[in-house]
């Protein structure tokens, strides 16, 4: 049976498109998405993955096909036909990447805007503001008199009615310190209520760190002497890692903590517990419920902090 070449090409093209579309949604490379921003980022990532899969199949397919189709015949020692370029082909393979790059740049800029990257408020600029330029869901024209934002602000799509919960973040070698100005709680872990915008104001105490929340899909440098911002709205209850993503010294690898996204009630309880503990001691040490003796509390961390059981037993209650 002799199937015409253009039919085979058509079938291959359709198959390639379907495989790319399927793989773009089912690559399984991303961790859990626990915020609205994460959905936006994944949308862009999946779109890029679809294009990349299609290009990979096309380029590698042509390569492998040519390896077999144009293999040197046995006893053929000639140089082969002299081929001197192909102008239409070159125009095509220059135009396709150009179009792809344009689409990706516009699309990623739109996603960045949706995440709040163009919010003039995060620039922290005391000068004149561009109040009129901020429309919902549209690109914002940046005026040269406004600093470029360091971080992410409030998303133009988000519900403006809910006041964001403000948390101050301090990155030091090698820990994250979270301060809740509303309640005065200071903690080494970050607890937030679900479905409420969280506004982080971050700075570094010593060197440059980077605050990374893989499940929220946001990451922002934390710089000594400057403030950077992140606004995000977690939408799934759970416990997620917080990781330092900028080499900050010998123990950079250990600069990790946890983000606890909790229900309103659990969060309120956590704030209450920690506020109480602080008032009791008159100083800002959080955690460690008073019912737990130090030894019992520390036991689970003994191997991490390099103390053995005997040393723990000697701790005064």
């Amino acid at each position, binding site marked *: 049976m002799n199937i015409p070449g253009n039919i085979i090409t058509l079938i291959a093209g359709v198959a390639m498109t379907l495989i790319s579309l399927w793989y773009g949604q089912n690559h399984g490379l991303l961790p859990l998405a626990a915020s609205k921003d994460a959905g936006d980022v994944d949308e862009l990532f999946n779109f890029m993955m679809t294009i990349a899969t299609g290009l990979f199949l096309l380029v590698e397919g042509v390569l492998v096909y040519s390896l077999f189709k144009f293999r040197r015949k046995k006893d053929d020692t000639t140089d082969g036909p002299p081929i001197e370029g192909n102008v239409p082909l070159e125009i095509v393979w220059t135009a396709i990447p150009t179009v792809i790059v344009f689409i990706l740049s516009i699309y990623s800029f739109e996603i960045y805007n949706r995440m709040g990257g163009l919010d003039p408020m995060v620039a922290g600029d005391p000068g004149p503001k561009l109040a009129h330029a901020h429309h919902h869901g549209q690109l914002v024209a940046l005026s040269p008199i406004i600093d470029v934002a360091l971080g992410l602000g409030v998303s133009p799509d988000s519900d403006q009615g809910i006041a964001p919960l403000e948390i101050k973040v301090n990155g030091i070698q090698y820990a994250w310190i979270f301060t809740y100005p509303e309640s005065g709680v200071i903690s080494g872990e970050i607890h937030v209520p679900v479905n409420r915008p969280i506004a982080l104001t971050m700075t570094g105490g*010593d*060197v440059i760190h980077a605050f990374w929340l893989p499940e929220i899909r946001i990451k922002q440098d934390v710089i000594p002497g400057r403030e950077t911002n992140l606004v995000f709205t977690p939408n799934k209850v759970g416990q997620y890692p917080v990781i330092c993503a*900028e080499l900050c010294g010998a123990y*950079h690898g250990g600069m990790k903590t946890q983000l606890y996204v909790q229900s309103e009630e659990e969060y309120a309880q956590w704030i209450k517990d920690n506020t109480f503990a602080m008032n009791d001691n008159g100083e800002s040490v959080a955690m460690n419920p008073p019912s737990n003796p130090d030894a019992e509390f520390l036991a689970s961390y003994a191997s991490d902090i390099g103390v053995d059981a005997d040393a723990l037993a000697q701790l005064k209650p």
Partner: protein
Amino acid sequence: MSTTLERNTPVSPPPPEKNEHRQRKWYEYYGYSTDHKVIGIQYLVTAFILYFIGGALAEVMRTELATPDPDFIQPEFYNQAMTMHGSIMLFLWIIPAGAGFANYLIPLMIGAEDMAFPRLNGVAFWIIPPGGIFFLSSFFLESGTAQAGWTSYPPLSLISGTWGDEIWILSVFLF
């Protein structure tokens, strides 16, 4: 008759072979040369040696990472190995190897006699070996070599491995 005479007319001796196209002695590859092919090979061999040093540092990191505990090297040395691995692979492998291929191949491909400034070309290569030795010598410092990553961001680069990072930045200027 006349043809024989013409044939016997002594012709001027062939011009001395140009420096560029002579067969090379082995030792010429170890010295200053203005031949683009010699310089190309010098670049490639030097870069390849440094590539192995950079690779050995990667092996050190991988060995450490085989288990979660810091049982093979200390955290400080891990960052030194990482910084030097990155810097060597960039400044002493990719860049010189690219220069090596460019030196060797481009004049041949475009049909040029040699590179545009052969002596400058030779000098440029001879910055690499002493620069590389200077760079690697910082491993023997008491405070260790650079450990702030190949981007060497301050303030981290100012407070960790001070002398190491000093040598690091001087070497990067040199390359």
